[in-house]
């Protein structure tokens, strides 16, 4: 809300610096958005009189002027044709600023110039504001203008405008009067509240009003004016409207806008001659009833919307905008002023449904109140008379179903003190509340307060104590309440395992060289299709958004792959030189229950020369080790987004942890990725459910181990893991450990379609050092077992 300082000064004595005022308002809950000069782009331009005017010796179109700027005479060049000796003009002398230009001495074809003359354009002036402002040339000022005077003062545009952010609970401050009330309290003064003079009308008003839906329209006030003389509004009103960022139109429209700003209540003026039978009807619209609003937009209404109508037609969308058919024009003779209260939620609904966002609708949505509706109307009528814009007819028409009684609330003094950590008496509280017009009486444990009509935010129910605590808090000053740690019972604070495990997983992956990604949750069905996920797959059961930014962000991700791939592509294109990434994030599935199923997933993406299926596998195994997952296995299979034969499902025991693989070349193309990418996705829940909770110490072997190698020749299709299992499970008295594949060889010396696999392993016994015989027996048993499984020893 804008607050011009001059306007504020009509109600209070501004007795502090601007900075002090702004700070005091801040402590009361009104944060400054900006503080602007009324005219921001101009400074230092002064008035000067041209005392002589000569032709430039070397330039036909330039004139050399001697200009009296009050304390001295300066030389200024101009190419303007409308200047003359004796003219008083605006002079941008050295140091003056217009827009981005700061004026300094210039030399044009051998003659110095100490600045420039200005046109009305530089001050954003219209002809209406200053005669001659829009001529093609320099602004010629009136003859009685003093010399050396600041132009902003001459034009009365030297005000400054505070702009405060308002919180939604204070719609009353979305008005000059409301904000000035708070400003006066902040400045420690009583506000000189304006007194509205009730204007008695002539005769009897012809118009009458019927409100058919008092729930949606609790109060409807109106007044008739005749003999309207449409004219520009006076300069003081125009200036104020401009300072508030509004464009003056004519006296009647300007009055409604002025009252809107001053009292914060939206009003509307109808041309009464366009209202059939002079009868205003406030009713719900019929289905498909069409109204054309002032901005020439046609609106198709429905039964949920409130319409202002006459017996024949709609003449306005209630609380949103008036109708074009009853607009004030140059020829308007009789006017009907409307000042009503419409239910905010209904106006919000209508405004949204019709896509018609107006200042009036916004104000009704935030809440207006019935007492102010009449005040605003009375003020508008007073202005009509003051401006001589018309004659008031009859009395106020007031259809009121609203409760206008002053509200009383009871406040628990001890509770307020408890919330604020203060120990005030009821009397002290009353004293603090006085400046903001909350008056009342102190009783034993409570204070009883009368709530002014405009403080709609203060409730009388269970919130009353808190509401008044807030008021006392902001007046007493949060800054004056000390900072104290909580005391009382001790709490055992902890990061539960549910969260600590996530830390552990992330830390492990970081140790393995991964950078952590954060990708958006939004994706598109097309992105999932590009992953070649078949239609029946769970991952196609995505959650759709009703109001997404666009198709590309229309659904919630069901896997981390899409976001990670997009980010990988970005890194590859930008040649960032890193190829290990991880992300821990949630995915959602539309399982047709109340809320979608949420699962936390761990995504991995590896790429670059050093990476392979097996470097990714290593990272996953290391992660499983750190998390103490038992019996981790990699089994052929996995998502269609991976290349066939290069993908695996990962199990711990019988629990599926996730999958990994090399990205399918078609998917790679779909994501415009130029490198081979290895990806994995693991379920956080699965990892946590398999986690070995109680790790127990196993004694370290006391007797030496013996290492052995062997190599077998098998068919290409044989999986190494199968042979490792064969070796591990060979029946023998010894313990077989650390079975590892250390070489795979195909080629010379190995038959076509076969491969040579070399394994190493260790043998030991729990309770003694092995003898050669024992070793040989066990070794032979392993060879036999391998041979029985079609894996004969390499000859």
């Amino acid at each position, binding site marked *: 809300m804008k607050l011009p300082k001059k306007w504020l000064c009509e109600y209070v004595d501004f007795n502090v610096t601007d900075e002090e005022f702004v700070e005091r308002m801040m*402590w009361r*809950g009104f*944060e400054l958005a900006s503080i602007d000069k009324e005219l921001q782009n101009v400074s230092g331009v002064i008035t000067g009189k041209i005392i002589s005017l000569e032709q430039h010796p070397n330039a036909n179109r330039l004139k050399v002027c001697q200009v009296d700027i009050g304390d001295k005479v300066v030389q200024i060049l101009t190419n303007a044709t409308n200047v003359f000796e004796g003219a008083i003009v605006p002079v941008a002398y050295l140091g003056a600023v217009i827009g981005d230009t700061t004026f300094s001495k210039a030399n044009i074809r051998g003659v110095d110039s100490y600045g420039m003359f200005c046109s009305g354009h530089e001050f954003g002036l219209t002809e209406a504001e200053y005669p001659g402002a829009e001529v093609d040339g320099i602004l010629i000022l009136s003859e009685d203008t003093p010399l050396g005077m600041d132009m902003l003062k001459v034009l009365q545009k030297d005000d400054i405008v505070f702009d405060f952010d308002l*919180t*939604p609970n204070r719609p009353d401050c979305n008005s000059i009067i409301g904000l000035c009330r708070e400003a006066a309290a902040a400045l420690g003064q009583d506000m000189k509240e304006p007194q509205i003079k009730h204007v008695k009308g002539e005769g009897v008003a012809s118009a009458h009003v019927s409100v058919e839906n008092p729930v949606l329209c609790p109060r409807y006030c109106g007044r008739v004016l005749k003999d309207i003389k449409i004219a520009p509004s006076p300069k003081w009103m125009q200036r104020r409207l401009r300072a508030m960022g509004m464009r003056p139109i004519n006296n009647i429209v300007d009055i409604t806008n002025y009252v809107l700003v001053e009292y914060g209540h939206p009003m509307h003026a109808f041309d009464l001659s366009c209202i059939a039978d002079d009868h205003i009807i406030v009713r719900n619209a019929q289905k498909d009833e069409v109204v054309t609003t002032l901005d020439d937009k046609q609106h198709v209404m429905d039964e949920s919307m409130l319409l202002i109508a006459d017996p024949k037609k709609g003449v306005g969308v209630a609380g949103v905008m008036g109708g074009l058919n009853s607009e004030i024009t140059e020829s308007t003779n009789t006017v009907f002023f409307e000042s009503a209260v419409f239910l905010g*939620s209904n106006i919000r609904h209508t405004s949204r449904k019709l896509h018609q966002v107006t200042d009036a609708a916004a104000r009704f949505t*935030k809440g207006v109140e019935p007492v102010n509706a009449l005040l605003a109307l009375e003020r508008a009528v007073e202005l009509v008379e003051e401006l001589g814009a018309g004659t008031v007819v009859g009395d106020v028409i007031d259809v009121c179903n609203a409760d206008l009684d002053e509200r009383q609330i009871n406040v628990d003094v001890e*509770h307020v003190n408890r*919330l*604020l*950590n203060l120990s005030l008496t009821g009397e002290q509280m009353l004293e603090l509340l006085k400046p903001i017009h909350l008056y009342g009486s102190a009783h034993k444990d409570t204070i009883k307060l009368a709530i002014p009509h405009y403080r709609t935010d203060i409730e009388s129910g*269970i*919130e009353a*104590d*808190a509401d008044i605590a*807030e008021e006392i*808090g*902001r007046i007493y000053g949060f*800054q004056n309440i*000390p*900072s104290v*740690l*909580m005391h*009382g*019972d*001790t*709490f*055992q*604070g*902890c*990061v*539960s395992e*549910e*969260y600590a495990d996530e830390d552990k997983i992330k*830390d492990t*992956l*970081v*140790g*393995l*060289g*991964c*950078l952590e*990604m954060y990708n*958006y*949750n*939004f994706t598109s069905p097309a992105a999932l299709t590009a992953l070649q996920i078949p239609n029946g797959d769970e991952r196609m059961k995505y*959650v759709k*958004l*009703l109001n997404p*930014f666009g198709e590309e962000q229309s659904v919630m991700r069901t896997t981390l792959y899409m976001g990670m791939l997009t980010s990988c592509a970005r*890194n590859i294109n930008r040649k*960032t*030189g*890193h190829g*290990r990434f991880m992300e821990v994030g*949630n995915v959602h599935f539309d399982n047709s229950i*109340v*809320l*979608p199923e*949420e699962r936390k997933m761990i995504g991995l993406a590896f790429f670059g020369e050093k990476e392979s299926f097996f470097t990714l596998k290593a990272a996953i195994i290391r992660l499983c080790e750190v998390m103490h997952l038992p019996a981790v296995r990699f089994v052929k299979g996995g998502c269609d987004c991976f290349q066939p034969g290069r993908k695996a499902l990962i199990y711990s025991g019988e629990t599926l942890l996730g999958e990994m693989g090399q990205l399918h070349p078609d998917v790679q193309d779909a994501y415009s990725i130029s490198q081979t990418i290895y990806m994995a996705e693991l379920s956080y829940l699965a990892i946590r459910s398999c986690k070995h909770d109680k790790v127990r110490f196993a004694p370290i072997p006391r007797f030496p181990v013996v290492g052995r190698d062997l190599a077998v020749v098998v068919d290409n299709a044989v999986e190494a893991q199968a042979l490792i299992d064969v070796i591990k499970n060979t029946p023998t008295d010894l313990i077989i450990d650390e079975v590892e594949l250390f070489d795979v060889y195909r080629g010379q010396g190995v038959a076509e379609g076969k491969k040579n696999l070399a394994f190493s392993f260790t043998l030991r016994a729990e309770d003694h050092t092995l003898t050669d015989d024992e070793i040989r027996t066990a070794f032979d048993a392993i060879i036999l077992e391998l041979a029985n499984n079609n894996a004969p020893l390499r000859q």
Partner: protein
Amino acid sequence: MIEELLKIKQDALERLAAAQSEAELQALQQDVFGKGGQLTSILRTMGQLTAEKRAAIGAAVNETKQELEKHMNEARARYKKKAQELRFLREELDITEPADFALPKGALHPMTQTYRTIRDALVGMGFSMFGGPEIELDDNNFTLLNLPLDHPARDMQDTFFVNEKVVLRTHTSPCEIRALQTLKPPFRLVMPGRVFRVDEVDASHSPVFMQMEGFVVDRNLNIANLKGTLDAFVHAVFGDDVKTRLRPSYFPFTEPSAELDISCTICGGKGCRVCKGTGWIEILGCGITNPHELQNCGLDPKEWTGIAFGLGVDRMTSLKYGISDVRYEYENDARFLKQF
């Protein structure tokens, strides 16, 4: 014989002095102490001597032996040291050559790091972790938080809808409802998570961001406690020099409501572009839990008081590290991520 011994000793010391290598020392050892060595030969002839002489010679031999061994050992140590010095010289590294990494540098996202710092500060004050889903009931996200349908403040947080009753949560505050419905007060909770708002992406907005909510319900809580708690964690995140300012504000789910400003982390409070010249930066909204919210969840607001605060981890991260554009935080450029 004594003369012989002296000569042996003399010769040996001379050879020792002249010796140039470990090998020469080895040869000397052999010549003197070896099986057919000089001292051994003398000992062997001792059998022919009288007992007295034998004792005297024996003692002399021993003495010589010990002295020579001492010298030999010293010489050996010298040679060993010299050899080692040579080896060190040979093996000297240019330690400015690049390091050899087995793995690339990994790093936690800066937001994770900020989140952990805040979390740990709060856990130190007795807070525990609590969470809720990213896709929430409208009831939990709005209505029960004292934001009934058509409440104008719903517009403050433009919402993504899944259907009429289900939204992408616009803040972590619905976790408060879940806590109130499932836990028995008193409790102190920290509730992190992703939240969503219909905001076009720009340098300071993102439709997806991370919030953390602090929520305490107890019998005797007040604004002073809120200030104390916030001061403690702000100092943990930004350091003890940072000043704070609690300023009245409005949120439907708190009453009284406030916003917390900290002295600008960029200019230290002098005024700059980041703080728009004010010297202060707003970092979070907070307040005393609105009595309606407590009542909606079955608690008596006269008996119980809540304090709550919600902050944007993205924003805190930007401020902590001086990140000028929030888009960096979701682009995942390795050159960005590696810096933290």
